[in-house]
């Protein structure tokens, strides 16, 4: 049995290396992007093998799913342009440099990594878990022990959306050259399932792998699917609508939770005694909602248009 597992690991590693090579070297950009998406999916398998189910969920939903959708839609726009045949790579002496340099770097890193005792913080987590308000260690780290990181992380997501809006209007939605009746049907069928799965993941976060990030990503991916299936993006950039507020909700609520600690005379982000569980639940819901909409907003690649301006060319 151990042999089978080892063979599986070796196969997985070989596939990952091959896909990474394809993603960076394939002559065709489409080929490279697809390799990268498959790379992400296999990476999720690797995370499972390394006993990191939370990371696997996030990788599958965000790393492969949402990033893949982003890359493909960007690629589609790029590929429509007439292409001048510029050299894809610098010609010439690259190998003479890369082979020795790469091997040296590889040897150094491996040597360093093998020397790691990896003490880890497992015992510290176990000792503090009961006081954190949740049973699942990763959620405890994300929303209690290292909540400051999570606040900044949602901030990065919101910031990215703001930057993308700042850069200009979203391009008009894609129109498939031969519309298929199956796709909208699929969208209608799957969207409720997406919502269901997202809610389930959110609820699960307190005691098992799951939580706001995978849940938000799944929800956001559902939105992207609806968009692909021909739905109009329902987010508006208007200052009057609620969308900007909902997008910023996650970060605002996290900030408020942080400040609440300071205002009550404790540390920043210190939840009042005994309320950590309810605090974390509220944070998860707000963060999950914002993450879903933010991932959707990132996919639009620009400030959503106002009503009625869809026909206008860029």
């Amino acid at each position, binding site marked *: 049995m151990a042999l089978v597992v080892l063979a599986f690991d070796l196969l997985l590693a070989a596939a990952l290396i091959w896909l990474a090579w394809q993603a960076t070297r394939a002559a065709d950009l489409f080929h490279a992007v697809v390799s990268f998406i498959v790379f992400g999916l296999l990476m999720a398998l690797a995370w499972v093998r390394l006993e990191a189910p939370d990371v696997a969920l996030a990788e599958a939903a965000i790393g492969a799913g949402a990033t893949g959708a982003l890359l493909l839609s960007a690629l589609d726009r790029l590929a429509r342009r007439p292409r001048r045949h510029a050299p894809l790579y610098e010609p010439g002496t690259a190998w003479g440099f890369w082979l020795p340099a790469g091997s040296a770097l590889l040897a150094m890193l491996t040597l360093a990594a093998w020397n790691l005792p990896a003490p880890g913080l497992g015992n510290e987590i176990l000792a503090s878990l009961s006081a954190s308000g949740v049973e699942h260690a990763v959620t405890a780290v994300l929303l209690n022990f290292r909540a400051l990181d999570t606040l900044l992380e949602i901030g990065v997501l919101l910031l990215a959306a703001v930057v993308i809006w700042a850069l200009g209007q979203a391009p008009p939605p894609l129109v498939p*050259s*031969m519309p*298929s009746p*199956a796709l909208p049907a*699929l969208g209608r069928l799957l969207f409720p*399932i997406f919502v269901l799965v997202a809610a389930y993941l959110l609820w699960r976060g307190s005691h098992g792998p799951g939580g706001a990030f995978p849940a938000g990503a799944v929800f956001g991916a559902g939105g992207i699917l609806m968009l692909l299936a021909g739905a109009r993006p329902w987010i508006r950039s208007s200052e009057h609508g609620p969308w900007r507020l909902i997008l910023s909700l996650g970060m605002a609520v996290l900030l408020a939770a942080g400040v609440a600690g300071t205002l009550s005379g404790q540390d920043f982000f210190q939840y009042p005694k005994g309320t950590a569980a309810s605090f974390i639940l509220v944070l998860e819901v707000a963060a999950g909602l914002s993450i879903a909409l933010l991932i959707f907003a990132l996919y639009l690649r620009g400030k959503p248009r106002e009503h009625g301006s869809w026909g206008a060319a860029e």
Partner: protein
Amino acid sequence: MSALEWIGSLLVFAGIPFIFLGTLGLLRFPDVYTRLHALAKSDNVGLGLVCIGLGVQSGSVALLLKLVLIWVLMLIASATAAGLIARTALARGLRPWGT
């Protein structure tokens, strides 16, 4: 081994040739349409058998239902994806093999 485990293993092994043949078809068939044909049909059967086999083997009804749900979702997704690919290929002017 109990009877359940035997039945489960049997189902899983029954599924493997379908997946193998589907993959063989993907690699060896001449054009997009025939390849899709091979993949969408035989892989789905193979996957179904493997899922049900694993579910039976586990001996838990909840797990079996979850695996069947995964299979159904895969069926829907692969049918839609195959349709989309075929339509795109047609729209780009690829003629089916032999016509």
